[in-house]
């Protein structure tokens, strides 16, 4: 019996010839190869799936879950002993609110991305919220500070998460901490990341899955997505990479807020982000909650040298013009937010201090704060709270109108995604 994959066609005139091509034989060769490719790819995929399963990548203790409006959120009660991480019932990186928490206690909640969360290996008790809570309690003993940081969040997502948790947490002050960079200011999703293609629980698919396809093909495309998502480990990994690396155009990957004309690819995302700030401000105003946007500075901006390097090396990826002053991104963002009636805090001085000795304030990844860095932020927030007399104002306001319950319902469904 002959080998089914053995060559059945060895063209004697391989090379240049005017003899007719044996088309059927050529196509048969391709058919064997395509079959082999399919089997090989599937085998590799299966191997990756088994390895993932062995490493517990798909285990129950996953740190995030997906959501229609926010993309992803921290999973409530997620634990990682390596970093002493223990998220509360709302997915916040701070201690649980006890059932007997005083109804008039002062609550501050900060939202943002990985630095706010305390990424890069920072232990949970090192985080800014623990430090700030200690400082605040020196003035107002019944006080609590929540850490609403989520890895890889944009400002748009942070604002949405903050707005969504207003009723459950009933905070007195909401802080959204952002930097004027592409990751924070340019949310690549078009607000809602999901689109409904069919009725029923499986009818929602991520918007990018069907983007670009004619509407009549949405259902089969969505089914293919679900099939691959269920059976292909490589597909799941690619989707995960997409989530982390997002889909911004290469030319604006390193964009930053500035006075330079905004490229068309930036404008819609930037405006959407500003509108989300306004929406959060309105939600806070309706509930009598104070809002402050803390403008942080990335490591690329924390010293003149780093800033010059960034400008020089990222012109093709959307960095502002070479002569842009280091403070300009912060000033422009501040002006844009204040024009919308949103009060801002500028943490330029704190970042500048950390930039002078990164090793003292940053984790080895050279991007996220270590314990000393978190302390600098906490002191910075406390200084501004004191300067505005906010702690006393908020304490009095809350004392006059205590909460009716210690906490409310978590408005998301971690199991339903």
């Amino acid at each position, binding site marked *: 019996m002959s080998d*089914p994959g053995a060559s059945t066609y060895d*063209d004697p005139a391989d090379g240049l010839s005017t003899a007719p091509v044996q088309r059927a034989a050529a196509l048969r060769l391709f058919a*064997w*190869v395509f079959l*082999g490719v399919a089997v090989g790819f599937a085998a590799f995929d299966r191997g990756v799936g088994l390895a993932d399963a062995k490493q517990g990548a798909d285990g129950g203790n996953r740190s995030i879950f997906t959501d229609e409006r926010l993309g992803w959120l921290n999973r409530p009660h997620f634990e990682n002993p390596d970093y002493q991480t223990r998220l509360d019932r709302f997915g916040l990186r701070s201690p649980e609110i006890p059932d007997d928490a005083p109804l008039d206690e002062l609550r501050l909640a900060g939202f943002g991305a990985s630095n706010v969360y305390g990424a890069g290996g920072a232990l949970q008790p090192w985080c800014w919220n623990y430090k700030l809570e200690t400082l605040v309690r020196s003035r107002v003993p019944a006080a609590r500070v929540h850490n609403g940081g989520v890895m890889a969040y944009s400002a748009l997502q942070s604002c949405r998460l903050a707005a969504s948790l207003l009723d459950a947490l009933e905070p007195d002050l909401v802080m959204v901490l952002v930097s004027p960079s592409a990751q924070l200011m340019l949310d690549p999703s078009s607000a809602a990341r999901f689109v409904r293609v069919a009725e029923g629980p499986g009818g929602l698919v991520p918007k990018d899955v069907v983007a670009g396809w004619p509407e009549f093909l949405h259902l089969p495309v969505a089914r293919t997505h679900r099939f691959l998502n269920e059976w292909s480990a490589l597909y799941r990994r690619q989707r995960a990479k997409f989530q982390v690396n997002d889909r911004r155009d290469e030319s604006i990957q390193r964009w930053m807020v500035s006075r330079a004309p905004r490229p068309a690819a930036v404008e819609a995302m930037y405006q959407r982000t500003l509108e989300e700030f306004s929406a959060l401000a309105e939600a806070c105003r309706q509930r009598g909650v104070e809002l402050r946007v803390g403008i942080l500075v990335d490591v690329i901006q924390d010293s003149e040298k780093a800033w010059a*390097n*960034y400008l020089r090396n990222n012109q093709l990826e*959307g960095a502002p013009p070479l002569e842009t002053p280091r403070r300009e991104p912060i000033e422009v963002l501040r002006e844009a937010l204040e024009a919308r009636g949103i009060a801002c805090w500028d943490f330029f001085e704190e970042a500048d201090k950390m930039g002078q000795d990164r090793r003292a304030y940053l984790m080895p990844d050279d991007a996220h704060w270590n314990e000393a860095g978190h302390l600098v932020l906490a002191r910075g927030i406390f200084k501004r709270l004191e300067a505005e007399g906010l702690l006393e104002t908020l304490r009095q306001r809350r004392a006059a109108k205590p909460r009716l319950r210690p906490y409310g319902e978590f408005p998301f469904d971690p199991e339903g995604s």
Partner: protein
Amino acid sequence: MNFHSVQFLAFLAAILPLFWLLANQRQPRNLLLLVGSYYFYGSYNVWFLSLLVYSTFLDWICGNRIHAARQAGDLSRARRFLWISLLGNLGVLGFFKYTDWALRSVAEGLGWLGVQFDPLAFTQAALPRFLLNEQMTGILIPIGISFYTFQTLSYTIDIYRGNLAPAKSFSDFALFVSFFPQLVAGPIVRAIDFLPQLEYRPRLGSERLREGLWRMNTGLLKKIAVADVLGQHLVDPVYADPGQYSTLVQLLALYGFAFQIYFDFSGYSDIAIGTAKLVGFDLTENFVTPYRSRSVREFWRRWHISLSSWVRDYIYFPLGGSRGGENRVRRNLLITMLVIGVWHGASLLWVLYGLLQGTTMIFERVFERLRGGKEFATNLPRSLLSWFLTFHFIVFSCLFIRARSWDQLVAMVTPSAGFGVEAIKVWAWWALAFGALSHFWPPAITEWFHRRFLRCPELLVGLLTGLVAGAVAWLVVGQTPYIYFQF
């Protein structure tokens, strides 16, 4: 549509069966490749197609006119049309690639005279939006323009020299200009090599199929498993902020980039050559283990061969080549290498890169003459010394390719504190080690794998290709463009 994308896989899966179905009909099969090539190029930016079409029309007309003039014995008319072709092509290339640089240089010159001139504001005011890049910081550079400009120029020059007859039909010529496997980053194909292949029916023996897949597989692995890993985990972070890394890490990043650019570009060439084989075409080789060279002159015979042979045939030889006095030869070498430098990009660093290569080649000539024309590397220790010096010269001259500015270049060669290598991630070590090993191990090892692959039955060849495709899907992070796309 990068070679390592699902879109390209789908594109190939559609093109290949259709092509072989039409294999016995000359016009339809070539037309299919032409339409496919335009679709492929248009997928980067539809607007770019207009430049490709312009270049195609210009050289089609000029080629025919030059040929007719030559046949009529009217050489001055032939020369006129050659000039039109040269100016028409190089003018467009110059506009897109060098205008920004020229304006910046003018601004600097005026600045010394105390006159303020903002080149960016001038560009933004003078040009329509579609000619500017996304960030509006300069003129858009159409992908692959340097490659196809040189390719079409070779066509008119060869006709002018009487080495080539014009293409039989416009569609043949358009396919030569736009042939998708090598359109955006080479190898630069000559009409004299490509057009005759259109005259014959394509063949697909099982050996050709295996050879094509071998080239595609090795090319994909070179790009994804070595070049991209080195870029992401070693070269890019260190070049972005050299002062944050130890001297040893800076040094490893220099080696890392040398291997990154080789594996990236030779990977692209391998995929291009392999893809072309699957539709019955043979493209010229572009690399022959260049880092094994024992002189800079040898390096340029092994690196980007299609470009270096192009400048040799169309610039170095017409200038006089190695004929004439020694000073004339040195001048020719300098001019030729300067053209190679400036072909890559518009900046002082590229000029310096070209001059550095040219100067070193001249130095090698002088050294050889001092030895009475005798070769230096005649035994193992001398061969090793020659290789060591050449390799390190190439590695350090790569600084001029990767650095985006003079400051960055200086920062990369300014020693930092310490010699720690903790900042290098394990993936980068693997990629660096594998890249170096696979380049320097005896070619017989690669050949052994190659021969085994060629002996496999089709099903197994497909299976191995599927495993490689799986590995690529596992490793790839987004659309990482090939380095040479920017040239």
